[in-house]
């Protein structure tokens, strides 16, 4: 049994309204010097098999459901 971490990020150039609004809110709370704020989504998934199998299964999960290749990149690592 392995636990894989799947990190789904927006591709470069895709606007991130949630990140932008969070940045505004942080600034409104008085945080100074806040640069770009990005939102990412992380899944921790328990899967059977070797680490290698787990990673390739995770990548398959991304292709079938977890990521839309038009706007998102994914990275699968074993935790």
């Amino acid at each position: 049994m392995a636990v894989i971490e799947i990190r789904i990020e927006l591709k470069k150039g895709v606007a991130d309204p949630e990140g932008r609004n969070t940045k505004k809110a942080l600034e409104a709370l008085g945080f100074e010097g806040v640069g770009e704020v990005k939102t990412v989504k992380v899944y921790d998934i328990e899967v059977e098999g070797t680490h290698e199998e787990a990673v390739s299964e995770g990548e398959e999960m991304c292709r079938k459901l977890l990521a839309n290749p038009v706007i998102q990149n994914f990275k699968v690592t074993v935790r």
Partner: protein
Amino acid sequence: MKEVRVCVLRIEGTNCEDEMADAFSTVGAVPEKVHLKQMERNAPSGLARSLEDYDILALPGGFSAGDYVRAGAIFAARIRSLMGPQLKRFVESGKPVLGVCNGFQILVELGLLPAMEGAMSEVPTAALYTNDSGRFECRPTVLRNDDRGKCIFASEIPKGGLVMFPSAHAEGKLMSNDPDFVSKLEDNGQIVFRYVNPDGSKAVYPWNPNGSPSDIAGICNPAGNVMGMMPHPERVMTRFTRPDWTRNPGPEEGDGMMIFRSVMENLK
């Protein structure tokens, strides 16, 4: 005339299936609200259904599977794994498919729209992504019919005519990796509806509620039998659901009627 059977497909979290079914009833079709699980091979007899038994497929709005992962992604993945090949045949045979709001998001996630290369792509080739405002946008929107005669859901709407349908979504911005995406849609005659200001001029926020490029509100596939749109025609079937009906009663029928009448005319 032969009975026109409509499959209004639902799973947990769809919430516009009643209006969608009613809209089809109003124009004389015979809609049935079908849960995706009824399409499974092991569904109990009596409840089991098959896509081939229907003439039209409608994907209603809502928050299917809680909009988890991405809006429409889970419903789309489940449809694809359960009946991808049947759905592809359904579309290739020219039968109409309508997706409204979450239904549009599902059609894009399924690869049935924009479908520039073949009826159904393996992976999505576009996305309906978070509104520029970062918020759920809920208000009447005015759409111009920019269909060039291809889309079987728009034939009863005057060319260039304006209709008012409500929008209610948080992810309605149509996106693609292709820098020439909009011009390709245009060249293929796939752009059906654009958001406009109430006077018909180019939409500015909030009349374009999501920041969609070229103010695109609805598109069809190159064959014209699959249409997805963010605003809700099924919510405006009578004058009483127009936002200004007390001041401006207008015609008895709501603008949404034309969408459903179009597809019925095209099936005759």
